[in-house]
């Protein structure tokens, strides 16, 4: 699939995948296969000289398949193919390849400075020992550390002052992510201890090794993901607390839906009698989700909550979620009120709802609530923004309570379980490949993948299928947002004007939509007057229609060749699965 003419997007963004050494495969095979299919159709055979590629196969999950791994049969493995591309870019010859790539506009030279930022050659972690690929992970911090380590590499050992310098970089990276100053200090201390004694291994460069230590420490600090602990006699009371505007009410609704999906019967209690229309807000959300709400009386919050629990008992609801008013942790009156609510309802869970964008204030907030009312967990909200979320580390270190959920959007189902490794990546500015994969999995179902495979095999992939594919990618969210999740692409995503890529998408989609089903199934019939009509219908030009058609023809040709290859085809089928 060639989308518009975004050669750099094609050639780069989707290829930047891999797995971290020692941590097992991180890519879901389906996603990998989709990308690989994408790639093999994109680069004409022979372009990268992969016909004589000496490397054995790498299979979908990054492991060597028993039967394939030692096979001498050379074949175009897409991963190796990509590595070859990287090597050429490294050698300053990347533009030659890109200018031949089908996605590239004709008669237009590809830029020669393909290193950064138009074509950042980064990440791609080692897929196997045979590939000998240049393992580079955790781009942004690694980049900063590279400079420090330039000399270390020659000496092969870490000196005290090298460590100092690199710790400074780590410190700044964490501070930029809004991790608390003191927490950073302790953290860096721990990293120093481990780094100084660490052996320099062959498989990782010193910079990578240090980053690995940092990442492991981060994951450890973030702790194990928490789950709701609903124990003891029902109804289980969950109390949500937090500052004003942290997202308690929205989270209450999301949480109610979450427990309902687990077979519970939630009751929402609106205990915010201060903010105008707070009760109304919860009522509206309850109505949307078809969930019962209790509240709205003129009495005090502790009383409303106690009555809410009574009400739950009466109605046989087994989970009560208390939405309390936003308050400052230093507001003693308001904190006393929370204690009263706690005493009146004996919650099994007291969760602090905190904004992922919180700055250095995080420690004071978390500590303030924990000290006064005792927390059992944290929920981080607005994680769908571009905040690094260092506040999570601060709050977690100061309270020691687990992070239980992440709020990732305004929709009521946008509540995700917490994964320490993903958040660690995000804090270090390494992208969030896993979330990207999950979205891909949600958008592409197995059946569709199988159908695709069949179409490719029979070389009957037409513009209808192309349209399907387009729409599936669109379901995953705005392209720029997807880009940001890919390690190393954050910078690129920021340079792409907001929506630009999505606009390209839209144009392509509009063109295809302006065709009749007949035309989509058989694009060959599209001649002069049809082109004019399509261009007019989609608000584009005949040139653009031509471009799309020629790209599509090229793609079909590629697919046909793929379909002919026997061994290749088998592998492709496996890839598609």
């Amino acid at each position, binding site marked *: 699939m060639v989308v518009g003419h975004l050669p750099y997007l094609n050639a780069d963004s989707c290829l930047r995948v891999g797995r971290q050494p020692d941590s097992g495969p991180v890519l879901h095979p389906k996603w990998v296969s989709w990308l690989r299919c994408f790639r093999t159709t994109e680069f004409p055979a022979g372009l990268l000289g992969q016909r004589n590629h000496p490397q054995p196969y790498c299979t979908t999950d990054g492991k060597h398949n028993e039967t394939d791994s030692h096979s001498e049969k050379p074949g175009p493995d897409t991963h190796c193919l990509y590595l070859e591309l990287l090597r050429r870019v490294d050698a300053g010859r990347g533009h030659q390849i890109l200018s031949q790539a089908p996605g590239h506009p004709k008669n237009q030279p590809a830029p020669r400075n393909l290193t950064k930022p138009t074509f950042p050659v980064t990440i791609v972690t080692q897929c196997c020992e045979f590939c000998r690929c240049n393992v580079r992970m955790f781009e942004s911090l690694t980049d900063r550390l590279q400079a420090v380590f330039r000399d270390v590499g020659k000496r092969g050992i870490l000196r005290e002052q090298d460590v100092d310098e690199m710790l400074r970089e780590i410190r700044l990276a964490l501070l930029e992510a809004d991790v608390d100053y003191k927490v950073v200090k302790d953290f860096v201390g721990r990293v120093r201890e481990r780094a100084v004694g660490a052996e320099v291994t062959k498989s990782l460069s010193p910079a990578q090794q240090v980053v690995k230590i940092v990442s492991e420490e981060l994951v450890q600090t973030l702790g194990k993901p928490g789950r709701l602990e609903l124990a003891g006699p029902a109804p289980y009371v969950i109390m949500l607390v937090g500052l004003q505007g*942290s997202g308690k009410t929205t989270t209450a609704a999301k949480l109610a839906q979450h427990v309902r999906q687990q077979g519970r019967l939630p009751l929402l209690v609106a205990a915010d009698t201060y903010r105008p229309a707070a009760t109304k807000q919860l009522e509206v959300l309850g109505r949307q989700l078809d969930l019962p709400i209790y509240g709205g009386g003129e009495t005090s919050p502790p009383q409303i909550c106690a009555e809410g629990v009574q009400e739950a008992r009466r109605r046989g609801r087994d989970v009560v979620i208390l939405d309390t008013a936003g308050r400052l942790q230093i507001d003693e009156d308001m904190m006393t009120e929370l204690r009263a609510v706690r005493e009146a309802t004996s919650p099994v869970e007291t969760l602090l709802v905190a904004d992922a964008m919180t700055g250095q204030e995080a420690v004071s907030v978390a500590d303030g609530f924990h000290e006064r009312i005792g927390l059992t967990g944290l929920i981080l909200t607005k994680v769908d923004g571009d905040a690094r979320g260092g506040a999570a580390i601060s709050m977690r270190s100061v309270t020691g309570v687990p992070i239980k959920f992440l709020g990732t959007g305004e929709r009521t189902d946008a509540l995700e379980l917490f994964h320490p490794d993903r958040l660690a990546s995000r804090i270090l500015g390494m992208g969030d490949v896993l979330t990207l994969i999950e979205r891909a999995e949600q958008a592409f179902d197995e059946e569709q993948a199988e159908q695709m495979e069949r179409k490719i095999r029979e070389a009957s992939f037409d513009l209808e299928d192309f349209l399907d594919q387009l729409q599936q990618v669109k379901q995953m969210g705005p392209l720029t947002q997807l880009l940001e999740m890919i390690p190393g692409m954050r910078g690129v995503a920021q340079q792409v004007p*907001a929506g630009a890529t999505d606009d390209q998408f839209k144009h392509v989609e509009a063109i295809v939509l302006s065709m009749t089903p007949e035309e989509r199934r058989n694009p060959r019939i599209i001649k002069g007057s049809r082109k004019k009509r399509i261009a007019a219908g989609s608000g584009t030009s005949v040139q653009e229609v031509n471009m799309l058609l020629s790209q599509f023809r090229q793609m079909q040709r590629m697919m046909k060749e793929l379909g002919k290859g026997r061994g290749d085809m088998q592998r492709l089928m496996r890839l598609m699965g």
Partner: protein
Amino acid sequence: MATGFARSIRDSLSRTRNAVFSRVAGLLGTSEVTDETWETLEELLIRADVGVETTLYVVERLRRRARDEAILHADELQEALREELRGLLPDPAPLNLGGREQDVVLVVGVNGSGKTTSIAKMAHHWQRTNRGVLLAAADTYRAAAVEQLDIWADRVGVDIVKGPPGGDPGAVIFDALQAARSRDKDLVIVDTAGRLHTQYNLMSELQKIRRVASERVEGAPHEILLVLDATTGQNALSQARHFQQVVEVTGIVLAKLDSTARGGMVFAVARELQLPVRFVGTGEAVEDLAVFDPDAFVQGLFE
């Protein structure tokens, strides 16, 4: 105004238990400037959310000044720090309001930053200066957001034009401007739905809202104020950058400064985007809004 502002800043900061800046005076004291002083200074600024980059910039400038001007004692350094911080904040030109038939103020920000409350406070503020204020409740997205503003409008005693839930915000503004004209109101404040600056679609909706306003009233919106939560960290800069790019923000409202947060990110925002801070929210009551005065703000940080 300045003294009033100084007082409210002082009041709000005095409520904070460990206002970092207030430690500056003590820590810098009259002792000699040593390496440790620089480290302390760096820590103070970062803990006030001034941001790594801006902190390093300020500390570097101070180091240079200390060398060039032979600053030996920390109290002189404190004075220099005050100047440097003040220098980061632009001198605000008067608000682009008044002198025309109708003023339109568009208020934008991320979810939960305090837009609605700030709007109520601003309505109250302008009403006291004898402006005929009308609110446009164009947050048709969040559940009960319109009701929330409606209650505020009632408390403050200003008119409000509401849209139906899920309705088109552009239509609400269209109606509001029409209503303002017929009811003889000369200042329309538009509340918009909170949106994360990374949501492209919602951000382009803002452009549409803006277009509707400018088609109806010449030069509208005359002010586009971005509400920032004072507890926000480095992300504030990203927010300001994105909103600036999409709708040309003209000023900042710093909400929730009554917490222990220091709002130091306004220095970073001012340094990069030259955006003036217009108002500061200092509490939950409708009176808890102060017109921003950079001198008093910087001064207040040291008291």
